[in-house]
């Protein structure tokens, strides 16, 4: 059974890369996710339905379509991709940063939804109370709304992290499957299933991804419980 635990250096590269891509995707998406969740939960504006649809689109589109759209927009010759590369030196195509972008977009709906639900559940009259105590809108948000929405923020981050770890279709379409650069656990498993006698390697990575996913879910449950307890003073 030793083969199960002898993870090769190549496999470690894929594991570390996956964790980095998922963490970066989640952390960078978070402020956008909070902003969009807040807009959808609280504001009435023209284009709200469109923003809602756009946010949840990656959940229902075939991942390969999302990946292809990313390629068109953020590729070297893409409208946004060319602009970012020429002006800021930020390149997405065939880089791990592109994988993080693809993962962040695919995970975005899962990030936004719990945060939005917890914003909707907050008693707005508490914000009025903080206004009468001298808090400008931004401080009302920072000191009252956001702390009260914390369990939802944690749930969204964990779901988004788990989704980003497992993302396959959009990533491989957009940035391909380059070992050490864009080959995540999912892509590596796919590669191992395509070559003869690599079953054990594939199985090892399957076990690793199950372990990471279970650990993430347990951690989120624990964090959410703690946040909930802190909020309600137990």
């Amino acid at each position, binding site marked *: 059974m030793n083969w199960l635990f002898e993870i090769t250096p190549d496999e470690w590269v894929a594991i570390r890369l996956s964790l980095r891509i998922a963490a970066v995707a989640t952390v960078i998406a978070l402020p956008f996710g909070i902003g969009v969740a807040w807009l959808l939960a609280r504001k009435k504006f023209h284009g709200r339905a469109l923003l809602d649809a756009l946010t949840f689109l990656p959940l229902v589109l075939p991942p390969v379509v999302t990946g292809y759209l990313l390629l068109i927009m953020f590729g070297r010759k893409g409208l946004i991709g060319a602009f970012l590369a020429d002006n800021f030196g930020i390149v997405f195509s065939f880089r791990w940063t592109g994988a993080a972008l693809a993962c962040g977009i695919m995970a975005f709906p899962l990030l936004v939804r719990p945060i939005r639900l917890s914003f909707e559940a907050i008693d707005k009259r508490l914000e009025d109370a903080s*206004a*009468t*105590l001298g808090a400008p809108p931004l401080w009302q948000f920072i*000191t009252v709304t956001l702390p009260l929405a914390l369990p939802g923020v944690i749930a969204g981050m964990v779901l988004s992290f788990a989704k980003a770890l497992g993302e396959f279709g959009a990533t491989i379409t957009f940035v391909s499957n380059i070992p050490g650069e864009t080959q995540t656990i999912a892509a590596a498993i796919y590669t191992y299933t395509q070559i003869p006698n690599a079953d054990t390697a594939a199985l090892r990575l399957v076990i690793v991804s199950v372990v990471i996913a279970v650990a993430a879910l347990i951690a989120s449950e624990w964090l959410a419980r703690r946040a909930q307890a802190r909020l309600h*003073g137990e």
Partner: protein
Amino acid sequence: MLTVNVQKMFGGVTIEAAFESAVGVTALYGPSGAGKTSIVSMIAGLLKPDRGRIDLDDTTLFDSEHGIHIPAYRRRMGYVFQEGRLFPHMSVAQNLDYGRWMNRLPRDTTESDRVIALLDLAPLLTRRPRNLSGGERQRVAIGRALLAKPRLLLLDEPLASLDRSRKQEILPYLARLRDESKVPMIYVSHQAGEIVKIASQVVRIEDGRVVETGGLDLLDAERRSMVF
């Protein structure tokens, strides 16, 4: 001196309120649904009148003619809500300190000690709002409003959510507050019995309109049939 003269269409009711409040405690008295809370919300800046003007001393808080509408967070109104509205994620001490923090006031331990003593809050400071009784919550809410050093204290049915014995528990604190702090107060209630213990001036409101203003003698008829 608070001068209010506002109109507002709100929830199918037209509110037309004009009154003045000099020093001391002015009661807004009238049945539930008469628009008292809406009027107080307009004074606090949480609700914007359609037309009119609100002045506090030499500050214009709202003036539709000149497009003035000072936002709630700059009005320095101490608002005590019917249901307290303490922040559930903060301790009592943090709730009390919130207004000082947001208004960037220097720490004033003499004043906070005074308010904590006035309202007997010392044993509650480390507790969380959910572990307080209704009466304790209202005392903390009053303390929180006072410690933001408001120019005017708005008490919106502060006793309405309490049972009779809890009301009797809070009333002496309100009387002490009136006698010991110099902050003028607007006291909203539909209970004549509360008002006679606290206020000196009465504005009677019915169907969104001010019907009469005057002294406590306005309540004489109600006091005779009073159940409180």
